[in-house]
């Protein structure tokens, strides 16, 4: 097993609706799907965003797209109309998700095309 950032094996895009944030997480290769499924859980995501006092974190699986959709309640400081932050939409937060460390089985390491 090798530890690397989720950013090297998946890409992501954020969207907002009110105070709720969604982050689509898409595996660069189908072989990474099981690793992401096992390690990028609602709990690990809730923990990563703990400082924002998020509520429920829901994960939806889209195996045909090799993708997951995370929905984080109360993640946006009240939403774009109420937030005091620079990024009230939470658009940058897709890249926060990608800072999550994951353990990748050694056999899959050669499939990682992106630089460390």
């Amino acid at each position, binding site marked *: 097993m090798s530890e690397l950032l989720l950013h090297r094996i998946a890409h992501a895009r954020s969207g907002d609706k009110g105070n*709720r944030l969604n982050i689509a997480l898409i595996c660069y290769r189908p072989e990474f799907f099981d690793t992401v499924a096992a390690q990028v859980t609602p709990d690990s995501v809730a923990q990563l965003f703990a400082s924002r*006092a998020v509520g429920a974190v829901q994960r*939806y699986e889209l195996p045909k797209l090799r993708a997951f959709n995370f929905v984080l309640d109360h993640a946006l400081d009240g939403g774009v109309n109420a937030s005091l*932050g620079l990024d009230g939409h939470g658009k940058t937060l897709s890249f926060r998700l990608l800072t999550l460390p994951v353990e990748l089985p050694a056999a899959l390491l050669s499939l990682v095309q992106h630089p460390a």
Partner: protein
Amino acid sequence: MPVTRVHIGAGAGFAGDRAGAALPVVQALAASGVPSFLIFETLAERTLALAQLDRQRDPQAGYSPSLVALLQPVLALCLQHNIRIVSNFGAANPQAAAQRIRAMATTAGFPQAKIAVVSGDDLSARLTTSELAARETDGTLLQGRDSVVAANAYLGAQPIGEALDAGAEIVVTGRVADPALVLGPLVHAFGWRWDDWDRLAAGTLVGHLLECGPQVSGGYFADPGFKDAADFTDIGYPIAEVSADGSAVITKPAGTGGVVSLRTVKEQMLYEIHDPAAYLTPDVVLDITQAEVEQAGPDRVAVRGARGHVRPATLKATVCFESGWFGEAEISYAGPNATARARLAIEIIHARMAQLQPGLVIRADIIGVVSSFGDSAGRDLAAATAESDDVRVRFAARHADAAPVQQLLAEVEALYVAGPAGGGGVRKHLVPQLASASCLIERDLAQPVMELLP
């Protein structure tokens, strides 16, 4: 002969989108020989409330301020090649938008252009503020308010389809669900039934993919070295080639920049989606859990497999109201010990404001250390150990009255002489705020109205 394929292009994904970007799309549509449509999506959540305020100041205003800039470069070409235009340019005043388009078309040599207006979304004369408050979902922001600025239901695709059935070459709407701009033309062209849920879902998915313009064709995508989009300068806006069964190929005009790939399409497919099995629209409940994408050539991605369920009984409405004042101010620190001086500036402002405006919630960021990712309570900033020798401290606050926020901005400016060493480049601004709430309303409260301009 029944129509077997139509092409739909997107000329804008938001009001501030790039004027002129639609031209290569229109040229490709004109060359296709296939029945073609062009959409412009220009209404974000609060845009309509800003438009309503414009209309109160000037009865001829209140439509999208970007209408002329976006439409001018392509209007004549569209009318010449029978590329029919569907847009929510109308905002708070679709009639005035249609009159403006009439004037533009006349100048362009098409005084007889058929222009349709879709309205009926405006709830302000039909529901009082307390009636809206009783219908609010996901919160109680409207309770106890005296008034609202704007209240609009999201209409569906039916009135757009009717307008096209009636021969409209340009359809201008107020608030409609964004994907309806695409679904309306598809139902019109293919004659789908309004209870053919799988077809309506397929068309809604195409609309969802197009509604943000270049976000599906390489915009909002590049991460250098990880995922790239070629030749950004003239990024191509998307075109969907849709078949009568609802399956589609997403592509972009030849010779334009950007990229249409499995990655760009998947990212946009899930954009602003919550439960992928139940994306609620006025026309259908869209289920994308079985949707599939396939690379069908360079910059061509085939999309199929959307499923649909019976449309929701109610309509969503967005209600905007005045919510006081928002202000922010920034100051830079650079060089040795810059981060420590930035942290000291934050301490000073918090201490001074605690005396001057106790209770005012103030957010502080150190841009370059923690800002975008940080929380408003400052937990992330307090925990951060990173240092930078070129940072910008940002303060933000909001209040029902301007004065307390104004005082914060003045105190940040005073850091010039009464703060840590070497602070420079203060910028500050104070703006009135609009906030929004969501309601679910009965369908009969927002009956769509379609009229052809005489």
